[in-house]
């Protein structure tokens, strides 16, 4: 018998194993391929020569398919390969979990074998871990080391890098320990694996952990064991874990044809490129084109002034960004005296203090800092710590800077390492703001991560793309998808040059078509200023110009525009009577120190992670709080909001007075219940039941039900439902009631009155995926609440075991409907009060428009409270829509909740102090339709449109910037109207 050869070609590594006739492993290797798949495989094959001159061979792995097909070598799917190896080496295993570079898999071996792979949303894999390590500015190994010293775990969204980042960044900026964050990242990966793959099956018994990340990362192992509650005996980490698939492939090769190793090698060597990839035009046709391009952009530069010689006033701008800190000192005529750009390393304050000391040492008494201004994520903290004169929201800062370079600017796009910001400018004011979000996340750091994966630095890597002959088309969606596109391109033999150019262009396409959502480049405007560190990359800049067909302005200080804008703001805002800045002096700075500690605020149920900085002079700065309570401000100072009122009113609905002679019914407070709770509470109380509500929503509740989530791309409200059901089951109610409703109440202002499919039929999914639910403890009748007759009939049947008369049911249902109308009236009444309050106090009003279930603080993340802390009165769509006119819209207006959005928007269009912010849950397919329409209604009447996408995130940093920008823009508009 011949020796068996297994080759596993993964997204980042090649593994090769040889086993002998008796099934004994003779050789295994593990090598990173840096995308040179073919070369790496060939190199590895040379190494197995000593064992035999001929083999039965088989390939496995996501990147091995093409190789196998074209090289005419047998192929086995990688999960299958793992399955074969597991049965041989660990016949008593119950479950195997395998994490790879971009895949995650679970194999259930006992109790009905099942093999599962992650869907196309690939958060929580090796690529995700790499991305997070980059964010922490650590190598993956360092991150792992640190995680073992963790003392606490923070909740972090793992579905997607963008959401994870918005959780992690505030933690870092608040001074959370990197070790804790590292451990939290691993826990997030575990959560993603459990919710994304287990789908209703529990991971228990003897569990095998396979794949590179689980082999090398001890922190990840620990997180898995902790979450799944496994002890050393039940959690198995095989020595040959990373090479397991190649062993399986070797065993599968038993049925293959034996052939000389040289034949295999020569076939692979002679493989031609597949030619299946699409390619675009080169970025530059000639060296001349390139030098013209460089010369043109050289023109947009600031000039320098010698800091050692200059005497006079200067203005300091600080951009305390989420990942980098930038400082710029300018003369009153905008010459640069000093500039600095540095990665935060999680310690922005220290960096600024250090740089400030340096500046003081350079300027002596010659230069007077007349004014200073700070912008960015760290604005509040910096201002408090260093007594900086002004703070400006970063969008404003960028805008000011762009105006300086082109007074006619009508479009600004800023691509940084981690985010994309775009503004449209009309009449010298910001007209609309677009930020990247999940599914449009490709930014600068993506190129960097890729360069690293290819074993290169970012600069030489992106330069490679400048003269690539056939840049590959990589699509423009999420970075993880791009990873697979790159994988495919590699499979087809694209060169590094072509991939580099393709990456640059995909980032640009992502920005134009997904973030800005321009249909044609013309929509961007004619005077475009580009900025942000990523645009210093000539390949990206060129791609942008090619895609838009415009020559744009890229200032040489593209990476410092925020700081420059802040400095300009300081210059503008410093009045003539102020002779010197209030910023800490050299002497004060030398005495300056601070300490930080983080605590959990117990002020309300949000339990925010609050960070307290104590400065050497005894002042304190508190951050991380969602409301003022945590910051020590009395809640009474708060501006009223409908959301808080509504949530509290809902919770107090079952007053506990009903004794429940017939038993207890559990109502899950989620999705449709946020609308219909009054109806069903009244109904069941009238029928003689005691009503029990599910626990309040929280991350913990979500995790409780996570193992029954069937579709991880469903919206967060839906996924939370699983926890609500678990909590009711734990409370021991007689049954849970949750109706299926294709139709919602008809409010007579739309073509139809559907619920969305998820709201309408979620009980079906719960029933199918939670084994604790059965016909007896889960009652889910199909109702049309508009038809009393049919509903009474259905309910009588659904509750037949309690033998309730249909007349009782009718009476109870009517009372319920009446109670719901009464409840709704109280919301509308509250809305009126708030409008009156806003009128009286001359405050801005924002309609925070979403769905009824966005009332849930775990879903809205306290955005209502944030708004009221900014001094804005908050309404909800259901408190106001009836005062808006009915509208005819371009789309089919056929969902009850969505019709409310349109009318609420219509209301905003004819009220000066009222604006609308739309809350959108990630994964809501219907809002893909409504958002454009709401925008259209608002913008057609000159109103600003703002959309906030929410998921499991807890950090509100980005949201705050967006809302503050909106408020700044509203003020600007109002100011201008007053002038006219």
């Amino acid at each position, binding site marked *: 018998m011949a020796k068996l050869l297994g080759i596993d070609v993964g997204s980042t590594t090649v593994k090769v194993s040889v086993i002998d006739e008796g099934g004994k492993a003779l050789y295994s290797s593990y090598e990173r391929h840096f995308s040179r798949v073919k070369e790496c495989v060939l190199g590895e094959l040379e190494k197995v020569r000593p064992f035999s001159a001929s083999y039965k061979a088989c390939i496995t792995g996501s990147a091995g398919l093409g190789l196998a097909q074209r090289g005419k070598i047998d*192929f086995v799917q990688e999960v299958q390969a793992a399955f074969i190896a597991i049965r041989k080496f660990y016949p008593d295993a119950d479950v195997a979990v395998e994490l790879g570079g971009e895949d995650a898999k679970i194999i259930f071996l006992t109790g*009905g074998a099942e093999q599962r792979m992650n869907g196309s949303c690939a958060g929580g894999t090796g690529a995700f871990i790499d991305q997070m390590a980059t964010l922490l500015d650590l190598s993956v190994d360092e991150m792992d080391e640190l995680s073992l010293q963790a003392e606490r775990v923070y909740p972090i969204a793992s579905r997607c890098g963008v959401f994870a980042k918005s959780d992690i960044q505030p933690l870092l900026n608040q001074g959370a320990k990197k070790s804790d964050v590292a451990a939290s990242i691993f826990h997030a990966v575990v959560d993603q694996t459990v919710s994304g793959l287990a789908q209703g099956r529990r991971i228990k018994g003897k569990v095998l952990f396979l794949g590179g990340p689980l082999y090398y990362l001890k922190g990840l192992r620990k997180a898995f064991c902790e979450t799944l509650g496994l002890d050393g005996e039940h959690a198995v980490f095989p020595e040959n874990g990373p090479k397991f698939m190649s062993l399986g492939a070797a065993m599968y090769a038993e049925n293959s044809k034996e052939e000389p190793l040289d034949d295999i090698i020569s076939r692979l060597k002679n493989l031609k490129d597949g030619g299946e990839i699409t390619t675009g035009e080169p970025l530059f046709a000639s060296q001349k084109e390139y030098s013209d391009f460089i010369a043109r952009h050289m023109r947009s530069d600031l000039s320098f002034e010698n800091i050692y010689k200059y005497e006079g006033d200067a203005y300091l701008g600080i951009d305390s960004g989420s990942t980098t800190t930038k400082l710029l000192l300018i003369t009153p005529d905008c010459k640069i005296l000093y500039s600095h750009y540095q990665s935060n390393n999680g310690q922005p304050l220290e960096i600024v203090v250090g740089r400030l000391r340096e500046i003081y040492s350079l300027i002596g008494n010659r230069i007077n800092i007349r004014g200073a201004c700070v912008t960015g994520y760290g604005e509040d903290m910096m201002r408090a710590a260093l007594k900086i004169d002004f703070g400006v929201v970063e969008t404003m800062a960028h805008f000011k800077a762009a105006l300086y370079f082109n007074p006619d600017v009508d479009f600004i796009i800023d691509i940084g390492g981690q985010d994309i910001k775009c503004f449209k400018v009309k009449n010298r004011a910001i007209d609309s703001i677009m930020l990247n979000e999940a599914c449009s996340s490709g930014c600068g750091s993506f190129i960097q991560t890729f360069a690293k994966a290819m074993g290169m630095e970012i600069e030489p890597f992106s330069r490679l793309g400048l003269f690539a002959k056939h840049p590959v088309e990589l699509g423009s969606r999420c970075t993880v998808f791009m990873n697979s596109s790159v*994988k495919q391109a590699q499979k087809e033999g694209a060169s590094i040059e072509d991939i580099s150019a393709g990456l640059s262009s995909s980032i640009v396409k992502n920005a134009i078509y997904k973030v800005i959502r321009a249909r044609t480049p013309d929509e961007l405007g004619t005077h475009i200023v580009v900025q942000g560190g990523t645009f210093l990359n000539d390949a990206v800049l060129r791609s942008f110009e090619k895609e838009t067909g415009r020559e744009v302005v890229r200032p040489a200080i593209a990476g410092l525009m925020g700081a420059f804008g802040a400095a300009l703001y300081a210059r503008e805002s410093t009045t003539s009577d102020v002779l010197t800045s209030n910023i800490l002096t050299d002497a004060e700075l030398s005495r300056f120190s601070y300490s930080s500690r983080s605590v959990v605020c117990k002020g309300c149920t949000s339990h925010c992670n609050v960070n307290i900085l104590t400065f050497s002079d005894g002042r304190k700065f508190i951050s991380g709080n969602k409301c003022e309570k945590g910051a020590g401000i009395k809640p009474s100072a708060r501006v009223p909001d409908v959301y808080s009122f509504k949530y509290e009113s809902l919770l107090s609905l079952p007053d506990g007075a009903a004794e429940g002679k017939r038993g207890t019914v559990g109502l899950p407070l989620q999705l449709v219940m946020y609308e219909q709770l009054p109806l069903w509470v009244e109904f069941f109380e009238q029928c003689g039941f005691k009503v029990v509500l599910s626990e309040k929503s929280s991350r913990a509740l979500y995790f409780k039900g996570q193992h029954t989530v069937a579709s991880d791309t469903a919206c967060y409200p839906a996924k939370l439902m699983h926890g609500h059901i678990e909590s009711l089951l734990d409370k021991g109610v007689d049954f849970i009631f949750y109706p299926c409703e294709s139709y919602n109440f008809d409010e007579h202002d739309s073509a139809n009155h559907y619920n969305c*499919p998820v709201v309408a039929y979620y009980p079906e999914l719960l029933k199918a995926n939670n084994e604790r639910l059965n016909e007896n403890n889960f009652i889910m009748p199909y109702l049309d609440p508009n038809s009393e007759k049919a509903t009474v009939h259905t309910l009588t049947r659904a509750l037949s075991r309690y033998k309730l008369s249909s007349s009782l049911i009718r009476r109870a249902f009517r009372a319920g409907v009446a109670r719901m109308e009464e409840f709704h009236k109280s919301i509308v009444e509250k809305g009126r009060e708030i409008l009156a309050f806003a009128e009286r106090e001359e405050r801005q009003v924002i309609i925070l428009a979403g769905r009824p279930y966005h009332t849930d603080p775990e879903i809205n993340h306290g955005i209502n409270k944030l708004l009221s802390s900014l001094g804005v009165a908050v309404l909800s769509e259901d408190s106001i829509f009836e005062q808006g006119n*009915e509208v005819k819209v371009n789309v089919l207006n056929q969902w009850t909740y969505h019709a409310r959005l349109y009318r609420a928007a219509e209301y905003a269009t004819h009220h000066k102090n009222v604006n609308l912010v739309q809350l959108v849950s990630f994964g809501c397919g219907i809002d893909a339709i409504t958002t454009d329409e709401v925008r259209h209604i608002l913008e057609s009447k000159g109103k600003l449109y703002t959309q906030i996408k929410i998921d499991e995130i807890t950090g509100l940093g980005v949201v705050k910037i967006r809302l503050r920008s909106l408020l700044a823009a509203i003020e600007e508009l109002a100011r201008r109207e007053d002038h006219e």
Partner: protein
Amino acid sequence: MSKKQAETRPVLDFTDDYPVFTRKMRETHTILVPDMLPWHFDLIAYILNLHGYKVEVLKNEGRAVIDEGLKHVHNDACYPALCVIGQFLDALKSGKYDPNKTAVMITQTGGGCRASNYLPLIRKALKAEFPQVPVLSFNVSGLEKGSGFELSLGLVLELSYAVFYGDLIMSLYNQTAPYEKRAGDAARVRQNCLNELKPHFAKGSYRKFSKRVKEIISAFAAVPVTEEKKIKVGIVGEIYVKYSPLANSHLEEFLLGENCEPVVPALMDFLLYCAVNPLNDAKFYGLRSKTTFLFRFVYKWVYGKQKKLNKMLEKSTFEPMHDFERLRSLADKVINQGVKMGEGWLIPAEMAALCETGVCNVICTQPFGCLPNHIAGKGASRAVKALYPNANIVPIDYDPSSTKVNQENRIKLMLATARENMK
């Protein structure tokens, strides 16, 4: 709630102006139709042309189509919308059609899934570059009234025959092609059958149902085949992705290449599903209208024809297609027939029917983030597996950037299990 209040208020119009397809345009305009079921649509286009329209089914494909779609459709909108819009724009830009003499057509079901909004999405997409191109709605729900395109009862009748013949040809082709002794035989017969059917629509003899069916069956039965046993793989899911080669990366061909027999349920089942939902609404919620009666009549007539067709197949060497009443009763075992948005209860019903007929390997195709599919696809597959322990179901997401490699890898995993089970 505030019904009365609302009635007295004015209705504000936020709609843009769009061109309407007038009766006159029937003569002047070419109507472009997206490619969903190549063989069915070929026949349908032929029939519409007989009725005085100038219809052309689009065949353009490739990255350019998807790129056009990406440019014009919201990131979160579903993949089918993106494909369809991409196909239209790519065609209009190709120079093959005079934009002033071209219209495009799309189906609308008026259901609670966002698919009913493809039409407005297409209008928005066309607005920037082709504002003069009218968009036609193909629907039986009374949407988009006042258009010069009318679905008369007679036309509907003719089209339903076309669907039956299309389904039959698709099914027999899939049952023959994997086993043909001489490569290309099945495809040749498929083309011949279509060519021969067309004159019958011109003459009216398409209504000789048994005769036509018999001809098609015997044409396929004449193809020499092997006795091999192959893995059968069922395809269910979102209606467009399930059938359209553009959207599902030529899934049927891929399966044939993997040495499998694709089993694709009939389009008519979806149409019957659409017809039966209003009847269910009437039963569940007492929602009756003038059209309920009509739906009941149409349903009975079509179902009768389906039974007849299946009887004839049973007598042949071929497997019959699903019986719709059987599908309904299978649905009841898994999910409630009240789940009627998108493809709703039809998806688990088809999964169950496939499992019952020995096709335990099922691919559930869905656009990434498809809402009804959360419930009826991914959500229900566990329930189906509980009923049929052998069921081997894999959900596959389709979207512009999920690569073929990833899709194929997951399908191959399912096939590996299938081969294991076959042993």
